[in-house]
Each structure stands twice: as C-alpha cells, then as structure tokens.
C-alpha cells in the first residue's frame, strides 16, 4: 500500500518507527499518522462499535468524525487520523 516511488513526488522518506497495535509489532514511517501507518500494514479495521459490534476505521481524515478513535496506552479516544505514530507507541482498539 505504500507509495515508495511517485512520478511527481519522488522517493519516500524511509526512516522507520516501530509500534504495536493490539499487541502485534508493526513498522511505520517517521512523521506519518497512526491511521496511515496501520493502513500501510493493510489494517483498516480499528475498532468495533459498542451496540452492534460493527467494524469501523478512518473516515473523515480531519479529526471530526472520531470513527478512527483508538487507545494509546491508557488514553482513550485518540484520533488515529490526526495523531502521529511515534517509536514504541502502544496502540489498542477501544470498545465503542
């Protein structure tokens, strides 16, 4: 999913960071959002809803809809679309 080469934008920055999502270890690129890092690892489903247990992922991309909310450590409802992934980050799906 990563666009390593781009006809206009050139090659991609390849500085990496390591993070975990629901306990599994993944690699992201420095400076990218949590949502981008997970999508690059083919992860689209970030959580399941409280009432109907439906899968949800990033939708609006500007921090408005909160669909992409995740837990970072013990902090709830962090928006994956506008929060940068950093080295050692522990990301978890949150119920609801």
């Amino acid at each position, binding site marked *: 999913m990563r666009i390593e080469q781009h006809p206009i934008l050139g090659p991609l920055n390849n500085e990496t960071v390591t993070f975990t999502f629901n306990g599994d270890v993944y690699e992201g690129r420095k400076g990218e959002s949590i949502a*981008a890092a997970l999508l690059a690892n083919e992860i689209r489903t970030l959580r399941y809803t409280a009432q109907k247990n439906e899968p949800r992922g990033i*939708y609006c991309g500007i921090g408005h809809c909160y669909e992409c909310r995740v837990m970072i450590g013990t902090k709830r409802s962090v928006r994956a679309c506008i929060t940068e992934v950093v080295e050692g980050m522990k990301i978890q799906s949150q119920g609801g």
Partner: protein
Amino acid sequence: MRMDVAIIGSGPAGINAAITLAKKQKSVVVIDEQGKVGGKLIGQLHEDPKDGWWIGKQIAEQMKREAEQVGVIFLLQREVWAIEPGWSIKMSGHEDITASYVIVATGAQENPTPVPGWTLPGTLAIGAAQVLNNYERVRPGKRIAIIGVDPLAFTVAQELKLAGADIVGIYLPPEGLFATEKAKPQSTIGYLSTMAHLAPNPWLRLAGSMAKHHFIQKMGSRFYPKAGMKVFGVPLRLRHSIISIEGTDQVEAITTVKLSSEGKAVKNSEESIVVDAVCISGGLVPLVELASSCKTVYIEELGGYVPLHSPEMKTSKKNLYVCGNITGVEGAKVAMEQGKLAALSIVYKMTGDEQLREEVRSQKEEVNRIRAEATITFMPEIMSGRKKMEQMWNEYVHESRDTHDIR
C-alpha cells in the same frame, strides 16, 4: 499568553494572514487541531496549467518556514472549544490565550453522502483519501470506486491513479433523499458543462467539454454511453450509481445499478464489482461552528451557511474576522489572498494608517483578480455568491447603523 491576533486554523488562509500580520510587527499565534501546519493544503497535488505542479505539502512547508522566520507562533494539536468575547480562546488541556483580534479560518468540511455500507472500514471521505495518498503516501486501496461527480472527485481520481491505484469508476450516488440532483445523469451533465472552461486538471477539462458538447447537452443523458466514457483511463459512469458497499470486516465490493436517462434505477441491473476501497465525494461545506456567535447567512452559491462578512473580511462581531473557505468554498490561492486581506484590514483598524487603507483596497482587488483566474472552482456560481454577500453586508450595515456597534 496575550497576543494582538489569534488565528484559528493553519490552512492557506490562516498562515498567510499570520505572515502578513507578523511582517507588520503584530504579535500573532496560529492554533490548529492537527499536528501539521497547512490544513487541507497538505494533500493537494495537481498540475496547474500556468505554474506547473502544485504540490500542497511543499507549499505548506515553505509557508510554515516563512511564518516562523517572521515570528509567528504555532500552537498545534490544540482543540479550541470556545472563543469568548474579549477575546479569550479556550483550548482543551491548555491555558487560555487572550487576543485583541481573532481570525477564524477553519475552512470547510465534507458534506457526507450516506450509502448503505458506508461505515465499513475502507470507505473514506474523499479528502481523507487525498491526504493519505499524497501526504502520507499510503494508497487507500488497490482497486478503488469513487462516489460523486465533482471537481474534487476528478482531482483525487487522477492523484490515486498517479500513485498506481486502479480506479474502477466514478459513479453517481444512490438516488434518495441525500442526493437528488447529484444522483441524476441529466443534471450532472449540466453541472459538468459549467466547468468546461475550468482546468484544474485535464480530466475536468475533457469531461467538461464533453458535457458541453451541444449534442450531448441537447439529448441530455439519453445518449450518454451506458458503459461510461473513459477520461484518461478512468470510467466516468454517469449512467450508473452505487447503491451499496459490501463487506464483512472491511470493503470487499460495491453493488451498482444502471440508471435510465431520467435517473431511475433499471430493474434487475444490479452488478457486483470487487473493490477494496470506496471514496465518497459529497461536496464541501464551510465550517462555521467556531464563528457561530457571528450573524450567519445562507448563500447556496458559497456552499451553505457562512458568517456574514464585509468585503474586508470583518464579521458582525467587533474585532472578529474570517478568511478562507469558512467564507465560501474556493481554491487555496483565493484563500491565501483572503488571509492577507483579513490581516491588512486588522492592521488598518489597529493603526488607522492611511497607507494601510490603500493596501486594503488593492488587496481586495487582488482577491478578485485571483478569483477570476482561478483554475479550480468548486462552486460554479461563486461570483454571484460573493455579490450576494456584499449586498447582505450593506443591508446589514444600513439596518444596524443606529442600533449596533458594527465597526
């Protein structure tokens, strides 16, 4: 922290306002909810017929550097939850900021178009897809369908294709109460034809000229090829709509239906097409929530509710100014010039300097000049929308002359 001016929003309008103010020796802070400076500018990528490639990410970085060099303070990842008269800017988890003047430059949000299945992961607002693709450099999918026929959909389709994605088509939204005219082939062709002279990218030019063609217009959608027309390799399906998005844990397919020339679904014409991502483009709406203490007016040509404002960008609230897409949906270049205009208006108000009056006057002309030669127009009747706003402002000033302080 006490400042001359606080600006909410670090998009092209907000940063340019900040640069202008700082160059005039005013203390200025720019507050943004996001961690990155540039707002929606960061995802933009298109070929400008005059200036070559417009790479939003680079422009945003340059503007940020320039702003910091002239002393602009950026406060990022701060959510403003209220702006109280005085002005006191309330932010979650942080101390208030007080400022003599406020500029609200919060831009626009996307108008959602609900489709059955649109909550499935892999379905994205088109703006989210744009930022992922061009800024983050992560492709939203390998095989992508786009819902909604408008300038942003065309632009992003081209950008996704540049990044190597396969676009199965640009489709009309499902017929229903959320998309009435936008779900009809005939009115979509009419809408496209108004864009023929605008050229944000070769796509729109081609689609526009195609729609403008006398024969197609006259015959309406009847003779629009059912298979769609390919525009630079992407099928533009004006006779098909997407009626649902399917999948278990994420997007796996779309179901499309054929449309009659009147826009009615043809019975038993459902078709399932495998995709792994869907982008929904429902148009942009000015984001007025932080300026809701100002008098707002509904002007369809500008995109909906906008704060009532003067041609110099002042609102009905004393010392509160607006610029950029909150005043009406337009391209980044117009937003930048509006930002500069709002900043100059404030400096004139602060100093009363006659030379500033002249700078404000010439900057108003500059906004109009950039608007007239814009290569991206989202609202086809933007000019008449701007005229309406000016009339409404004049009426408001006239009516409230005796009762309110509207300086």
